C-alpha cells in the first residue's frame, strides 16, 4: 500500500528505480512471523496502514488487494504501439476499472476472483468507505461472487476514520471463524 501511494505521488522514473531495488530485496525477505490466514482486502480509497498492521497482528497477512490505493492502480501493462499516446490510451481502456466506470458489465468481479484464486486467499475483507457510491453499489455483488466461490468475506464499513477497537473485535471473530473451518475440513 505504501509503495502504491509512493507511485501515485512521486516522479515515475524515481519511483521505478526504488521499486526495482525493493523487488530484489523482497525475494529473500523474511516477514519475521507466520503468514497465518492469507487474506485479501477489497475496497476504495483506503490508505489506513494502521488498520493493515492491526489485522496482521491478529494472525493473518494480506497477500493481495483490490484497492484504489493498491493493485488497481498499476495492474495491467502498457502494450507498446507505434503511437505511444494510443498505447497509453489502450491501457487505460483495458485496465481494471474504478467501479464508477465499470459498467454495463462488472469486469472487476472476474478479476477479483482470479486474484483470490492465484494468491490462494483464505478470506476477504471488504472495506467500504461511506459516501463512495460506486464502491457501495458493487459491494453486494462482490460479496455474493466471493461467497459463491467459497471465499468467506467480512464487510467493514467506515466513515473516513477507522474505529480500530470495534474492527479488531470483528476481525478476530472472522479469523476465528476461518480457523474453525480449517478444523473441520
Amino acid at each position, binding site marked *: 500500500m505504501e509503495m502504491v501511494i509512493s507511485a501515485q505521488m512521486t516522479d515515475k522514473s524515481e519511483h521505478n528505480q526504488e521499486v526495482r531495488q525493493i523487488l530484489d530485496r523482497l525475494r529473500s525477505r523474511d516477514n519475521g512471523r507466520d503468514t497465518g490466514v492469507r487474506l485479501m482486502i477489497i475496497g476504495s480509497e483506503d490508505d489506513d496502514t494502521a488498520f493493515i498492521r492491526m489485522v496482521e497482528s491478529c494472525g493473518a497477512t494480506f497477500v493481495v488487494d483490490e484497492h484504489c490505493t493498491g493493485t488497481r492502480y498499476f495492474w495491467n501493462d502498457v502494450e507498446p504501439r507505434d503511437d505511444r499516446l494510443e498505447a497509453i490510451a489502450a491501457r487505460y481502456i483495458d485496465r481494471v476499472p474504478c467501479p464508477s466506470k465499470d459498467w454495463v458489465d462488472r469486469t472487476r468481479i472476474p478479476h477479483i476472483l482470479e486474484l483470490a484464486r492465484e494468491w490462494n486467499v483464505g478470506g476477504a475483507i471488504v472495506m467500504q468507505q*461511506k459516501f463512495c457510491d460506486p464502491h457501495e453499489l458493487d459491494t453486494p455483488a462482490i460479496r455474493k461472487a466471493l461467497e459463491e466461490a467459497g471465499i468467506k468475506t467480512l464487510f467493514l464499513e467506515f466513515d473516513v476514520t477507522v474505529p480500530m477497537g470495534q474492527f479488531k473485535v470483528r476481525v478476530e471473530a472472522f479469523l476465528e471463524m476461518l480457523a474453525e473451518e480449517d478444523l473441520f475440513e
Partner: protein
Amino acid sequence: MTATPTYETRPLQCWGKAKEIRKQYYVDYASAHERGGLRWAGGAWTFGAIPCGLGDDVYSLTSEPYGASIAANKDFSMRCLEATERAGYARDLCSYMRNYWGSLLLDEYLWGGSFPKPDFIWQDHICCSHAKWYQVVGDHEPDIPQFCIDVAVGPEGAINENKLSYIVGQMHDGIDWMEEITGRTYDDEKLIEAVYQECRSTSLWAEICCLNKAIPAPLEEKTMYSLYVLGTLAKHSKVVADFYEELRDEVQDRVDNHIAAVPNERCRLMSDTQPPWGFLSLFRYLEEYGALSVGSLYTFGLIGMWEDKPDGSWGPRTTPQQQGIDIKDRDQALRILAAWNLSKPEWQHFYSPHLKTALMVRIAKEWHLDGVLLHYNRGCEGLSVGIAENRLGLIEAGYPVMTFEGNMGDEREFDLARTKARIDTFMETLGFTRESTSTGSASAPSRARRCT
C-alpha cells in the same frame, strides 16, 4: 413587517391537464405490452429522443421522477427502502435508487399491480451512480439488456468536436444495439421529430422560468415541481412541448395581469437541489411569512435549456427550429441532441462548484432574490457535491443563506420541526414576521386564494 395580501391570485387553468399528462405517462408505460408496444427504462437525463426511432408505441419509465413519486408516498417508500437495505445496499446511496430498487424487489408498482419490468434499459452516465443504478437492476433482472452512454466530457465551455464525437459515436452504437435487441427497424424521421420536440420543450420550460423574474412571481416552486416534472418524464414528447407552450402563454398572461402565485409576496427566495419530497408543506410554511421560492437552479436547469441573451440576461436557448436549421439525417440529429444536452445547467457543477455558484448568483440577481435556502441533500450526492462552496459564494455575493439537512427520498433523514425552526430564525434575520394564516398558492384549486 406584516404580510398583508396585496396581489390577486388564481389557480392555473392548465393544472388539471398537467396532472392528466403525468398520470397517462405512467399508465401508458405499464400497459404498453397490452398494445404490442415496448417499455424502456432510463434516467430523466437520458437521451430519450433516441428510442423514439423505434416507433410510436415505445414508452419509458424515467427513474428519478419515479423514485421521487415513491418518496411522496411515505408508507410505500419505507417498505421500498427497507427492502433495498435487506438486499445489502448502503443507506447513504441515492434515495431515488433505493426507492426504485425497492419497488422492483417488492415487485410492486407505485400506481398498482406488479412492477412493470422494462424490455430494455437506455441510460446515460454523468453522476457516478447513473449507470450503476441499472447495473444493480441487472443483478436482479439479468435478462433485461441495457446500454449506457458516457456523457462526462467536461463543462459546456470546454466542449469541442472530439468530445462531441465521442458521445455521438456512442449514440450511433446505441441505435444499432436497439435494432438488434428489439428486432425493429429504426426510423430516422421519428428521431428527428423527437429531437425537435425535445429542444422545443426544454427551451419553453426555460422561457416559463424566466417569466418568474416578474414581481409578483406568477409561479412558486412547489407548483413548478409539478410542471417541470413532465420534462423529466418525456422531454422529447410533443404532448409535453405543446403543454409547455400552453403553460407559457398562461404564465405570460399572469405576468401581464399581475396575477401572483402567492398573494402576500414579500420575500423572494430560491432553493437548491431536490426538496424532501415528503415534506413539500415547507413551501406553504414559507408563505406564512409572505415568502416564496421562485425556483432554483435545480428547477430551472434540470431540464430547462438556457443561453446568454444579447441584453446580458439568462434566457431560453434558441432552438434549431428558431435558427432555421432543417435536420436532414441521423448523424445531424444526434449531434444536435448531444450538443444541446451538454449545455444543461445542472450538468455543469459536476466539474466545478464555481460554475454552479456563478449560475446561482446569476439567478439571485436576475430573479430579484432576498435570500437562499440550501438543502444539504443526503439523498443525492451528485447534486449536493460542492454545495457548501456554493453557500460561501452566495454569501460573498451578498445573499443571506439558510442551510438545512435532509434527504429527498428518505424521510428518516429529515427533521420537519427543526427545519421549520431554522426557517423561523432565518426569516427573523431577514426582518419578516409570521402571519397566523396560510395564504394558498397558484396550484391548489381547493384552497381559497383569490384576493380580489
